[in-house]
C-alpha cells in the first residue's frame, strides 16, 4: 500500500545564462508514495515549477538542462529514457495541470478538439468512442451539458470551467501521476474550494499519486499528505502534513507559517521575512537562508549547505541548528 511511486534523488537542474549559471534546482530529493499527495511549498522562484518540469523533462532548452540526479518512476529512471519514450509517458503515465487556465487552452480550437488530442495520441480512439469518452470526462469534472461544451471555444467558458477542462485533459488517459502546478492560484476563492474538492475526489476514485505545488498553506493543509518546503532551489524541510503544522522546525518554515495572517491576530503589523531571496546565479555559501534567518549563527555561513537530518520519524530538516 505504501509503495514508493516517485522518487526524486538529488535532482539538479541548471540554467546556463550570460549572467552565470542559475541553479534553479540544486540537489532536491523527495519521494511520493502511491496514491499520496505530496505538496511542494515555497516562494516564487524557489524551484518548485522547475522541479516539476524536470520530472516531465520539459525544462526549456537550450538554456536549461538537468545536470544531475535521478528521477525514479516505479523504479525506472526517467532521466535515462529517450525523448520518444518520454513522449509516450507524457500524458499517459504522468500528466500536469498548469497554473493559468486562460492560456492553457488553444484559442482557435474547440474544447472537444483539445480533449480528444491526448486520447487520439495515446489511446488511439476514433469516432463515436472518442466522443463518448470526451463527454464522460467532462461529466467527471463536473461540467454540465458536455455535448454542448465539446463544441465551445475556450473563450466561451469561465475560468473555473476552463480549469476543469484542463483537469479533464490531464486525466483523459488515466495517468498514474498528476502534477498540479498552482492550479487554483488564478481562480477566485469559492471556485478554488470546488476545484480542490474535485481533485481530491478524482484522486480517491483513481488512486492517483499527486504532486501539488503551491505557496498557500491553507491548500497544503487541505490537500497534502506529505509536504516539502523549498527555498532557493533546495529542499529545506520534508515532513508529513500534520507533523509539519504541529512541529515546524526549519526557521524558514516557521517564518512562512507565521507570516500568514490569522483571524484572531491582534497585531497591527503583518509579520514578514526580512530581506529577499538570493539571486540563483549567485548563491551565498553555507545555508542559503542564513542572510534572512533570525536564528542564524556563525556556523550557518560555513562552506556547505546543511545536510539532511531526521528530527522525528519521517521528518527531515536541513538546518545547522539540528545538524
Amino acid at each position, binding site marked *: 500500500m505504501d509503495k514508493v511511486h516517485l522518487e526524486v534523488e538529488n535532482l539538479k537542474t541548471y540554467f546556463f545564462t550570460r549572467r552565470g549559471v542559475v541553479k534553479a534546482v540544486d540537489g532536491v530529493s523527495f519521494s511520493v508514495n502511491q496514491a499520496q499527495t505530496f505538496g511542494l511549498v515555497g516562494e516564487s522562484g524557489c524551484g518548485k515549477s522547475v522541479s516539476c518540469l524536470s520530472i*516531465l523533462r*520539459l525544462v526549456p532548452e*537550450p538554456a536549461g538542462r538537468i545536470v544531475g540526479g535521478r528521477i525514479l518512476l516505479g523504479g525506472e529512471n526517467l532521466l535515462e529514457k529517450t525523448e520518444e519514450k518520454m*513522449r*509516450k*509517458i*507524457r*500524458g*499517459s503515465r504522468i*500528466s*500536469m495541470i*498548469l*497554473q*493559468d487556465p486562460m*492560456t*492553457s*487552452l*488553444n*484559442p*482557435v*480550437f474547440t474544447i472537444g478538439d*483539445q480533449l480528444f*488530442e*491526448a486520447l487520439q*495520441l*495515446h489511446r488511439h480512439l476514433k469516432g463515436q468512442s472518442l466522443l463518448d469518452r470526451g463527454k464522460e470526462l467532462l461529466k467527471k469534472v463536473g461540467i454540465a*451539458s458536455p*455535448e*454542448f461544451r465539446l463544441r465551445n*471555444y475556450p*473563450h*466561451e467558458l469561465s475560468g473555473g470551467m476552463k480549469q476543469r477542462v*484542463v483537469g479533464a*485533459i*490531464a486525466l483523459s488517459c488515466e495517468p498514474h501521476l498528476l502534477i498540479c502546478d498552482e492550479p487554483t492560484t488564478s481562480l477566485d476563492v469559492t471556485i478554488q474550494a470546488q476545484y480542490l474538492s474535485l481533485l481530491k475526489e478524482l484522486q480517491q476514485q483513481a488512486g492517483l499519486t499527486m504532486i501539488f505545488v503551491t505557496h498557500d498553506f491553507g491548500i497544503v493543509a487541505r490537500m497534502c499528505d506529505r509536504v516539502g518546503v523549498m527555498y532557493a532551489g533546495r529542499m529545506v524541510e520534508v515532513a508529513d502534513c500534520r507533523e509539519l503544522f504541529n512541529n515546524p522546525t526549519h526557521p524558514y518554515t516557521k517564518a512562512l507559517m507565521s507570516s500568514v495572517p490569522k483571524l484572531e491576530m491582534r497585531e497591527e503589523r503583518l509579520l514578514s521575512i526580512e530581506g529577499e531571496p538570493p539571486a540563483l546565479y549567485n548563491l551565498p555559501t553555507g545555508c542559503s537562508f542564513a542572510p534572512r534567518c533570525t536564528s542564524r549563527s556563525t556556523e550557518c555561513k560555513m562552506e556547505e549547505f546543511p545536510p539532511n537530518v531526521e528530527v522525528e520519524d519521517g521528518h527531515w530538516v536541513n538546518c545547522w541548528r539540528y545538524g
Partner: protein
Amino acid sequence: MMVQLKRINDTWKQFRRSLLKLQIRRWPVVPILVILTFLLMAIFANLITPHSPTEQSLPERLIPPAWQAGGSTDHLLGTDVLGRDVLSRIIFGSRVSLLVAFLSLLIGGLGGTLLGVIAGYSGGKLDAVIMRAADSTLAFPMILLALLLAVTLGPSLQNVVIAISITLWARYARAVRGEVLSVKERDFVAQAKIVGCSRFRIIVQHILPNVLNTVVVLLTLQVGWVIIVEATLSFLGAGVPPPTPTWGSMVSDGREYLVAAWWISFLPGIAIVMVVLSFNLMGDWLSEALDPKLREAAVG
C-alpha cells in the same frame, strides 16, 4: 430530461442565428462584389470581351468612351492610340494582375510563412541563418531586382513573379517568426508538450493555426501592393511584355495623351484603384473577423 435537451437545442439554434446575423450585417459587401467581378472577368475574359485586346485598327484610334462626344457603343471605354479597345484590354489586363498577385503570394507568401515558422520555432543557428537571409533580401531594392531580371533574362510573367516573390518572402518570414516566438511561449504549447505531442505536431497543429490569422490578413493586404508593383514594373517596361495587355503598361502607354485622350491611362488606373481598395478593405474586415474573441463580443 426532455426539457434540458430542448433547452440545449434552443440555445444552439439561437447561437447559429446570431452568427448568421453577424455575418450578413457586417460583411464588406461592396469590396467582395468588386473582387468577385474582377475575378470573374479574369476567368471568363475570352467570353465577355467585345473585341480582341490586341487587334489594332488604325482608322479607329483615339475614340473617346461611349458617354462622351464622339464616342460609340462599339467601344464602351474608347480606344487607344493603336485603335485597340480599352475595355477589352482592361478585362484581359485583370488576368495578368490577378495571376501575378496569386502566384507571387503563393510562392513568396507561403514560402516565407514556412521559413518564418521554422525560424521561430527552431531558434538558434537555423533562426539566425534564415533571418540574415531575410534581412539581406529586404535591403535589396525590388524594382532594381526586377529590372535586372528583365534585362538579363528578358521580361516575362515568370520573371515578374520571381522578382516579387523574392521581395515578399522576407516580410512574411519576419512577421511570422515574431508571431511564432510569442505563441511558442503560451501555456497551451506547454500543455501540448505535456500531453505528449511531437515537435512536428506542435508546429502544425498548435502554432500554425494561431499564426495563420496574421498570415491571411497580411496576404489580403498585400494583394493590393503586389498589383501596384506589377503595374509599376509594366509601366517601367520590366513587366509582362507586350502584346499582353497589363494595366501598368496601359497607364504607361497613355502618358503622352493625358490631356487629349485621358481615358487611355485613367480608366486602367481606376481599375487598379478599385481592386486594390477592395482587397485592403477586405483585409481590414478579415483581421477583425478572424479573431474569435472579437467575433464573440459582436454576437453576445
